């Protein structure tokens, strides 16, 4: 257990050492998204059920911050260790594969949660000044549930990709060609009802769609999809990506780049 806690502590200290890159920068991105999309363009967007667009956007941006940073944390931790050569250390110390995956996974969740939390604070501030009211949190327990499942899913995904990637290009390709489309087609910025029917169908195969909508339901009580399905898909995503991370840890490369 001490080994697991030590690795978790190291993961947290690692991202805190480069706080501008790991926390401040994504928070500024979220701030700009809120300013441009939520405040400026938000007036011209009409949502169903009379939900203000800013209220709709805030949970989406929080999830985007959560998953991007969870993924970045675990993958960059492994990749920088591949560059520096200390990844092999993890193989020679008495820590189990499960402890390594969970420590790296939770490290990612904590960074993702911090970015999501500050994004939420900024969003709530905008909400108060633009709409003149404090945004109410509808279901706090489900917020924690989706932070944990969403963060773990994408941290595990980061572990998987970083271990099987042989070059930095392969890692970047995953972010550009997989993670980015999943995010944009998952309903961060718009309800999928506004998409072409083809893209609506595609979105239903996107696990992020269920995560974003589950989280949105937890925050504003409104969602494009049934909560039970969101919960089940989120749990299934954690299980599948854990299996992928474990496979990568056993079969992937610890070698220096």
């Amino acid at each position, binding site marked *: 257990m*001490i*080994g697991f806690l*030590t690795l978790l502590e190291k993961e947290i200290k690692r991202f805190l050492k480069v706080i501008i890159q790991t926390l401040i920068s994504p928070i500024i991105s979220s701030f700009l998204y809120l300013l441009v999309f939520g405040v400026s363009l938000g007036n011209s967007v009409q949502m169903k059920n009379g939900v203000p667009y800013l209220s709709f956007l805030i949970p989406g941006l929080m999830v985007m911050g959560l998953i991007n940073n969870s993924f970045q944390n675990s993958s960059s931790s492994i990749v920088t260790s591949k560059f520096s050569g*200390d990844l092999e250390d993890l*193989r*020679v110390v008495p820590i189990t594969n499960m402890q390594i995956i969970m420590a790296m996974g939770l490290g990612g969740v904590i960074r993702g949660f911090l970015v999501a939390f500050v994004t939420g604070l900024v969003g709530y501030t905008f909400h108060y000044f633009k709409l003149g009211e404090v945004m109410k949190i509808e279901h706090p327990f489900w917020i924690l549930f989706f932070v944990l499942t969403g963060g773990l899913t994408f941290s595990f995904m980061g572990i998987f990709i970083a271990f099987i990637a042989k070059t930095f290009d392969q890692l970047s390709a995953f972010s550009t060609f997989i993670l980015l489309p999943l995010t944009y087609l998952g309903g961060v910025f718009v309800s999928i009802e506004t998409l072409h029917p083809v893209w609506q169908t595609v979105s239903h195969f996107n696990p992020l769609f269920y995560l974003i909508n589950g989280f949105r339901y937890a925050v504003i009580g409104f969602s494009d999809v049934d909560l039970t399905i969101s919960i089940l898909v989120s749990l299934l995503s954690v299980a599948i990506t854990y299996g992928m991370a474990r496979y990568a840890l056993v079969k992937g490369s610890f070698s*220096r780049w």
Partner: protein
Amino acid sequence: MNQIPLELKNLIKTYPLKESGKFVEAVRDVSFAIKPGEIFGLLGPNGAGKTSIISTITTLEKPTSGQVEVFGVDVTKDPLFTKKQMGVVHQEIINTGFFTIEEILKFQSGYYGLRNNQPRIDYLLEKLSLKEHRSKNVKQLSGGMKRRLMIAKALVHSPKLLLLDEPTAGVDVGLRESLWNFVTELKNEGIAILLTTHYLEEAEKLCERVGIINKGKIIFIGETHAVISQYSTKKVHLEMKSGLKVSFTDVASMGLVEILEKNKIAFSDIKNIKVDEGKLEEAFSKMVNS
């Protein structure tokens, strides 16, 4: 659990060749054991299989067949136990950029389940002359300091078995000497040490026994002085009172009296005698090239 820190039994390790799909045998039926308080040198040219053996002991690689046991426990069956017994100094220098020396040693202690390990960390920092650099980030360290940090990391949990894979590569002469002294101290504390090195002078100075490996196979295993006397040329250099200097080679089986009698030299004519017992380097070259 037994008292033998490390035992390899008929170890074979093969790797698939990507191009041809065939297999290359990197380690071929290697067996040896190391006793507590012994420094065992594993010597061989580049690509001989030394690092493959270290990787198998540390479970970075799985054996194709055969066994590696640490204190009688198979490394593949209970890797957590065997990892706790050993410390490893890798061949390549590690450059973890984010943390200071002290932070790295604290993390390393934690990986071995040690929360309050400050006295041991302080001892190692002092011993390895890193005390005044403890707050420095790794990227600020010289190559020699990084090497010492790697040794400190390997020793932070007081292992009973130490694997040193080329520990003095790229280290200056002064530091090498001090590391040799430190390794000798560790041996005197009862730690079993497996040393791979390219510096045969290092092996000759430190190791009681050596194993010489070539193309994955052990071609000699035994006491260091035995390999030297068996495979190197003993030389006797005489300086005569007349100023003449004479050298006799290939005299390993002869005593001095026999040499003098055979060459009709009177003992009273000799001013100085120097006997060169031969070097491990010479023995090593002969064995590997034969």
